[in-house]
């Protein structure tokens, strides 16, 4: 019978009135790959920070290797063998790979003077553990996201790690890189290291973990063997609701296209992309991270304009050199990174909702009509069901799903013809995901043209009538979703 490496029992934690953890348990066995899943705000980040010594629990016990842990600091946790790899990897972009690798251990040994030769040796040893080939003198800023992650993993391994906690590690990785990561994880497991893998992606839970634990709203919902899990149970545990997938069927598709793209090219990103989007349609664009799909979205909206090619909006040739051109042409973009690109978090929900159409709410001399503004805000909050006690509250008080609704609301207030969405439900809880899909389908039925650019294949299959598969910057295949399934699409993407 394998023993417990880490056993948390009845852990409570509150912050300024918010009860983040309400007596949760977690049991990680030696040498196992365990997945911790849950929607944003369920408490998984809080528990990780408690395990790694950043926070102290208000109540409950944590046992590591049979011994109860008293108040530990981050350094104590590291010495015990608990390593956390955060989403931002905690790397120093301005320093070299070598320094990033060696700093932690040098500091832990309380060194004052720097011996560059010794540092290099330490770094060389660290990358050898997983055969990571990299230029030790390169500044980390020049590495790709996957490489930075490898640096973080190598660093984690340097302290005789017994438990490695990875927080949403696959967010910015291509499928190939995800595979490479999973191979590394298996290698680590073979070395007897336990891995706690935080993720909300079902396919990853299935693919890599042996056991899982699901939190919801600060409570433990279910823990068990992964092989007993299926997609419906997973959704149910995560949200407490059952969802029936609603396949989108386009009705009243217009003859004339709202958006027509011909031979659009952005050097180094995508080439010769052509397609048409009609009113009443939802078209999907998918591909790997490097397929150019993100850049296509940016080109259509004018953030990174294309180098050549033609864009026609409602039949008229439009030169989109900056976002204003797109908005004027009634095309909006819901960006990939909601937090830094889509929202002004410290500002009020009100400000966020009306910013895109603010010129329309103004009269002569650009003076804002306050009554108009107030009515508009009331309308948008109601229409998009934004859950907030007061729209004057800051946007950062909203959950991920509600934040995305604000972004949607902001654009739909502008009476657009075309809406492009890049990764519309990334980091959104399953409940809101479902609601957002419903909104999009209704919008299409109402006469808009929707373009969903995403790598979430179930999302594409459920919501789009047609899908364009991009590979290395070119459209590899355009297909009807009724004739497609995940495997087929994947085969064209790779």
């Amino acid at each position, binding site marked *: 019978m394998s023993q417990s490496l880490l056993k948390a029992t009845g852990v409570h934690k509150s*912050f*300024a*009135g*918010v009860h*983040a953890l309400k007596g949760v348990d977690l049991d990680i066995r030696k040498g196992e790959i365990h997945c911790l899943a849950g929607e*944003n*705000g369920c*408490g998984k*980040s*809080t528990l990780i*920070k408690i395990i790694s010594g*950043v*926070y102290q629990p208000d109540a409950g016990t944590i046992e590591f290797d049979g011994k109860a842990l008293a108040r530990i600091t981050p350094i104590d946790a590291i010495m015990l063998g608990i390593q956390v790899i955060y989403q931002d990897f905690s790397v120093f972009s301005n320093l070299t790979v070598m320094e990033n690798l060696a700093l932690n251990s040098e500091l832990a040994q309380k060194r004052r003077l720097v011996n560059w030769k010794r540092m290099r040796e330490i770094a060389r040893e660290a990358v050898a553990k997983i055969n990571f080939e990299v230029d030790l003198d390169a500044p980390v800023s020049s590495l790709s996201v996957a490489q930075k992650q490898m640096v973080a993993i190598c660093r984690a391994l340097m302290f005789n790690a017994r438990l490695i906690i990875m927080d949403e590690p696959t967010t910015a990785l291509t499928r190939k890189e995800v595979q490479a990561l999973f191979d590394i994880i298996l290698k680590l497991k073979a070395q007897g290291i336990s891995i706690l893998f935080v993720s909300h992606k079902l396919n990853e839970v299935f693919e890599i973990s042996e056991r899982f634990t699901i939190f919801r709203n600060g409570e433990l919902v279910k823990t068990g063997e992964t092989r007993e899990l299926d997609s419906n149970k997973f959704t149910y545990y995560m949200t407490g609701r059952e969802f029936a997938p609603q396949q989108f069927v386009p009705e009243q598709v217009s003859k004339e296209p709202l958006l027509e793209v011909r031979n659009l090219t952005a050097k180094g990103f995508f080439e010769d992309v052509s397609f048409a989007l009609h009113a009443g349609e939802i078209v999907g664009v998918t591909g790997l991270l490097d397929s150019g799909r993100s850049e296509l979205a940016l080109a259509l*909206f004018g*953030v990174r304009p294309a180098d050549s090619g033609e864009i026609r909006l409602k039949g008229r040739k439009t030169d989109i050199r*900056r*976002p*204003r051109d*797109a*908005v004027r042409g009634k095309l909006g*973009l819901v*960006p990939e990174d909601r937090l*830094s*690109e*889509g*929202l*002004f*978090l*410290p*500002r009020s929900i009100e*400000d966020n909702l009306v*910013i*895109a159409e*603010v*010129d329309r*709410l*103004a009269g002569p*001399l*650009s*003076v*804002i009509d306050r009554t108009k503004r107030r009515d508009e805000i*009331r309308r948008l*909050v*109601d229409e998009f*069901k*934004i*859950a*907030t*006690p*007061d*729209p004057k509250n800051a946007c*950062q*008080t*909203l*959950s*991920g799903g509600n934040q995305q609704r604000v972004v949607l609301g*902001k654009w739909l207030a502008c009476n657009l013809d075309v809406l492009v969405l890049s990764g519309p439900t990334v980091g959104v809880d399953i409940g809101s995901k479902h609601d957002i899909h419903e909104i999009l389908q209704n919008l299409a039925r109402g006469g808009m043209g929707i373009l969903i650019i995403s790598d979430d294949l179930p999302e594409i299959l459920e919501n789009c009538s047609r899908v364009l598969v991009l590979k290395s910057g070119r459209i590899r295949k355009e297909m009807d979703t009724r004739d497609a399934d995940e495997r087929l699409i994947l085969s064209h993407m790779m």
Partner: protein
Amino acid sequence: MSGMARPKGTLSTLYAGNRHVFRLVAVILAWMVFMALTRFEKFYTLINFQTMASQFPEFGLMALGVMLCMVTGGIDLSTVGIANLAAILTAFFLKAVALPDGGLPAYAIPAAFALAMAVGAVLGVFNGLLVSKVRIPPILATLGASELFTGVAIVLTNGNAVSKLPIGYATAINSKVLGNLIPVQLIVFTAVALVIWFLLNRTTYGVKIYLLGTNATAARFSGLSNDRLLVKTYMLSGICAALGGMIMLANYNSARANYGSVYVLQCILIVVLGGVSPAGGKGRISGVVLAIFLLRLLETGINRFPQISSYYISLIWGGVLLLVMVLDYFSDYSAGRRLKRRPAAPAP
């Protein structure tokens, strides 16, 4: 599911949103009371207030311009440079159009103001382009520009002051209207402050620059023309600076490349004390105006105590700034909000 909250008591909402402003008002009132108790006859005279009102617009106007730049997340270190250069060019103009008897034609003063504002606008646009198109960090761009503008001013004047101006200008600006009551300088300042208040609080420009200062990337993704907004902002700052220069021209009856060099940092001090965050996106003009008043009141008040050297102003000013910041730090902490270094509450 949504639902507008019941409006809280007006005063308490007003206080919560303007905590900083209220603190400033409290400090000003405390000082006024102190002066009333100790130097009533010397301080509370009409002449005294008139003098204050005629002097603070010099740096007050500059501070308004710096405030705009700070709201966008930038800064304007070149205000004094612009002010001096505008004043010098205006002085040349006034001397050029002076009538043989030393007077000035009727159009001279309005034309002079137009000229100064045009100069300020052009120099401000230069700054704006450096910041938006060339993407030089504002602190460095305006630093270099400041040196450049001052350098041009030195070359034009050979390092000397431009004096012997037609007396008409100084007398006009130094006069008081409304029955010899309100100094013209105060009128200019009030007019500009009102315009800026209006721009910030009632127009789309105001909304846009607050959001630009909060998150420039999101602003871009929301369809805002960041470049145009920045150029407009620095242009306005340049105009404010030029007007400040015009006031200096009147108050000193001369123009020189190195006048008012202490104002650069003083303006930043005022703006920050007024509640504007150097990171951008926050700050109210009421706070800045109050901070300007506070500075002037402190300075004039201290002057009434001859035993205390007026140089102590610097000390008090810096001390007040540090005090206010520490107070803000502790009040934020006790209000339950966590600051950077303390563990943040988990994101929802």
